[in-house]
């Protein structure tokens, strides 16, 4: 296998920066990729991995910085530009037309033609060749919907190879694969590497990263945290670079005075993970964090408590009283509030004003026989904006015009004006700048001190460790452990959160 000269990497990224309204997603990031190399890019959620990959695949454009392919500076205006340069992105959610055959998918948009008609025989022949190259013995005439998720992933790879991709970007390819399918994928990846294809591998599963990578690039908060050469790739090094920052400075958690049980959950089964029963409790004035990998079933727990998803079975008690929640209406009536993960879709109505958003969940309380009490609405909104320090010229401006942090404060304002007993927060600081983050941490601390029970999900370890009185760790739908504040270490959380995936590595 001919190794390219080290002086000229296949892909070279320098000084890339990208901002979105209210958020700095990437800042001066550098990365390079050799021919026939597997480079893993890791980082917490929101660290900027996806943005970087989207820039490389031509989905988004950088604000500044350069991308060079084989030494030549390129500028991608579209995905097809990137493809022409030999870069293919395989999305987390597969992009296949499942009502078409494997062959039709592989050549979608580039169908070989004869006499103006699609040349089915050429498609069959060529598809078979690409499938064989990744060791898949499937008939290209099979419909994609009849394939397993793992096989569909392979079709995506075959499709990338068919455009002669020399750089393959895989975004969380194993997130929906079984263990056996994942192993199969790793074999293909190694095989492609030996054929000279360069692979950028993105994963939360550190065990996979350790197993596969030739090198690792770690991102944190949109910045480069460091590169690791093959012999430096250890669990400890990865976590240290990912979490990195001095934790104690940002967080201030006042010790929690033991309160009564605010919510108790027994034998709860969510529709996504029907096989596992969940049991836990949260006390008044306590902050409990739920840690785990993306897809571990944390969001489902919050959604089920909030009535957004129906539980399959189980019992929820709020302040000792049994509760049946079938919709958010019931949950809110019982004093449960949720700050959802998808702020723009579920948290706020972007096209409404700050005031209208803050009052949305509580106007029916001040209304008189259905008629709005505008004075009460105004007072409440002004009060919340002041309390939460929402930065806006007036509370009558469109919520969509605010930065992420201020939008999140509006969501919190909406819930605080209905005085909840239990506050659920799903990734409360995602996409929020560090200043607003700190304000939200302080607010959570204060609310707990006022006796509200708080249950929150976060993929940022430092957040979990800095805020929680107690941490529940989940893995693939079940609770794998519970740690009290004095037991909290990154190592302990990571071990429980990756229990099965990294079973082989936990010991060392």
């Amino acid at each position: 296998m001919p190794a390219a000269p080290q002086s000229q990497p296949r892909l070279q990224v320098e000084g890339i920066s990208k901002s979105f309204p209210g958020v700095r997603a990437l800042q001066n990031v550098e990365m390079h990729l050799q021919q026939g190399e597997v480079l893993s890019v890791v980082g917490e959620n929101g660290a900027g991995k996806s943005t970087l990959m989207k820039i490389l695949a031509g989905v988004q454009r950088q604000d500044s910085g350069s991308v060079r392919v084989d030494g030549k500076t390129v500028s991608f205006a579209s995905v097809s530009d990137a493809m022409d340069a030999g870069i293919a992105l395989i999305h987390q959610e597969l992009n296949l037309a499942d009502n078409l055959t494997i062959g039709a998918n592989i050549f979608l948009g580039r169908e070989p033609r004869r006499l103006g008609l699609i040349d089915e025989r050429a498609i069959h022949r060529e598809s078979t060749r690409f499938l064989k190259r990744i060791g898949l013995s499937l008939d290209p005439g099979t419909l994609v919907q009849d394939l397993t998720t793992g096989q569909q992933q392979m079709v995506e790879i075959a499709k990338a190879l068919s455009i002669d991709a020399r750089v393959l970007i895989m975004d969380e390819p194993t997130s929906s694969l079984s263990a056996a399918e994942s192993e199969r994928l790793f074999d293909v990846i190694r095989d492609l590497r030996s054929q000279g294809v360069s692979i950028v591998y993105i994963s939360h599963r550190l065990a996979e990263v350790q197993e596969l990578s030739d090198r690792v690039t770690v991102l944190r908060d949109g910045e480069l945290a460091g590169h690791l050469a093959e012999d430096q790739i250890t669990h400890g090094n990865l976590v240290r670079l990912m979490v990195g920052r001095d934790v104690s400075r940002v967080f201030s958690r006042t010790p929690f005075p033991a309160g009564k049980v605010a919510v108790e959950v027994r034998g709860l089964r969510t529709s996504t993970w029907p096989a596992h029963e969940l049991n836990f409790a949260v006390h008044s004035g306590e902050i409990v964090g739920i840690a785990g990998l993306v897809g571990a079933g944390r969001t489902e727990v919050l959604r089920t408590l909030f009535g957004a998803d129906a539980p399959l079975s189980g019992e929820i008690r709020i302040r000792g009283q049994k509760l049946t929640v079938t919709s958010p209406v019931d949950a809110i009536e019982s004093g449960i509030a949720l700050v959802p993960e998808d702020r723009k879709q579920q948290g706020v109505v972007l096209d409404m004003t700050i005031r209208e958003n803050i009052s949305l969940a509580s106007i029916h309380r001040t209304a008189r026989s259905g008629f709005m009490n505008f004075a009460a609405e105004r007072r409440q909104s002004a009060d919340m904006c002041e309390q939460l320090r929402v930065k806006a010229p007036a509370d009558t401006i469109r919520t969509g015009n605010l930065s992420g942090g201020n939008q999140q404060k509006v969501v919190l304002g909406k819930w605080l004006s209905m005085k909840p007993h239990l506050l659920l927060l799903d990734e409360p600081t995602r996409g929020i700048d560090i200043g607003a983050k700190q304000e939200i941490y302080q607010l959570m601390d204060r609310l707990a001190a006022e006796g509200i029970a708080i249950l929150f999900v976060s993929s940022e370890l430092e957040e979990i460790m800095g805020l929680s009185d107690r941490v529940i760790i989940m893995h693939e739908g079940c609770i794998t452990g519970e740690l009290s504040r004095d037991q909290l270490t990154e190592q302990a959380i990571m071990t429980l959160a990756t229990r099965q995936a990294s079973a082989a590595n936990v010991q060392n």
Partner: protein
Amino acid sequence: MRGKILGILSVLILLCLFLSMATAEHWYEPLSSKFLKLDNIMNLLSRLSLYGILGIGVAFVIITGGIDLSIGSLVCLSGVLLSILLNVNYEAESTFAVKQITATQQLIETTAAAGEIPSDSIVRFTGGIGSGVVFTIAEEVSPGVLRVEELPPRDEPEGELTLAVPVRSFDVETLTAEISETAAKAGDQLQIFLPNGAVSVQTIVSVSADSGSLRLQLERDPGKKYHTGSYAAVLRRDQFMPIPLAVLCVIAITAAVGLTHGLLITRLKLQPFVVTLCGLLMYRGISRWLTGDNPAGFGELQEVLGPVASGRLPVLLRGDEVLFGIPIPFFLLLGLATVASVFLTRTIWGRYLLALGRSEEAARFSGINTQRVTILAYVICSVMAGISGMLFAIEFSSISPSSFGNSFELYAIAAAVLGGCSLRGGEGSIPGVVIGTAVMMVLYNLIMLLRIPQSLEYTIIGAVILLGVLGDELVRRAAAGQRLRQDRNRN
């Protein structure tokens, strides 16, 4: 929103100005134009009222991000239903089916029970060739089998007997008939059997009892020959339902239709387009089936109902002639528009409606029962179509079920869109919709007055709506661009 309303209002004013000048003899004398003729304005207001009610209804659905295509058919269905529920029938008090008349034996076999047709009573036979013969009952031979005094002209296999009473006298001056006592009330009809076999039917104006006989004042003179030997039977007036009840029924039925739409759309997650498209087909079909595809109307009730739709509140009079009057439906429109506008802007349900139209998920996550509010919007829309449908039917006085209300839904939707409702949902105002409807009506008027071939009607209306939406989109983009620049500057 305020900008949008001002925008469409200025379009309306410009259109009116243009039309005033274009239809005047000299453009500088717009006040003398055909457009500003009082009759034309009255008609415009009247049409605006009926279409406006439709537009307000559909605006609610559009604000949820949905659509209702069934409005036109529902207009037709409610007109047809009102006509059926108000159906008026006149039926003889007592009639009996005849099984057999045997002429030689002077026997009539009937389905009457024993004693139902007493001896000495007078009956009139209808059916077959011997129609119109009057018999006096001699005796009841066995239950239902009667022997008569007169000799029947021939055998009859079937027919009907109507119990009649002799007309004792008739005062030509006062049009008052005197008959022996029987049940009758004002509004019923008196069927008078003249000796020559002819039948005259007259409406009874008033009834007074007078020692064993009834004095009936009739509407018209039944003819000279009634005097000697005429018999009469009272036809009882039977209106299927009183008017208020019929109107309530139609409203209830249309509400049920809206409820069904809403349930299918929210609970079963069917697409509004598909659900209401099926409605469009079904309600049209039901209307045609109910009427047997015959024109429907209100018969004698048209006089009572008419003023509701075509009445004018006089403003300008010359003698007894009304020069200008405000159409009664216009007041109805103002009333409904006010209620709708207050509902949308001042109640929590209006707020919920706007919130869920912009982001159903965020509204649901804020504890709003979005399904219930969405269903409510469909109910409002269907009921408004029902109200407007009844008014249209009364205004047209005779409706043909296969074409009445055709494509009204498109007018309503177009008016709502012109008036600032976004089909994306979450946006809209009632005054805007009313003004939007007015623009549509003036456009239609323009085609008429300028003698533009009517075949171009849809083309022009379509083009104007397209321009309106285009203008709105350009304004929206400009605003969005400005927002983006502000964001950039802040960062």
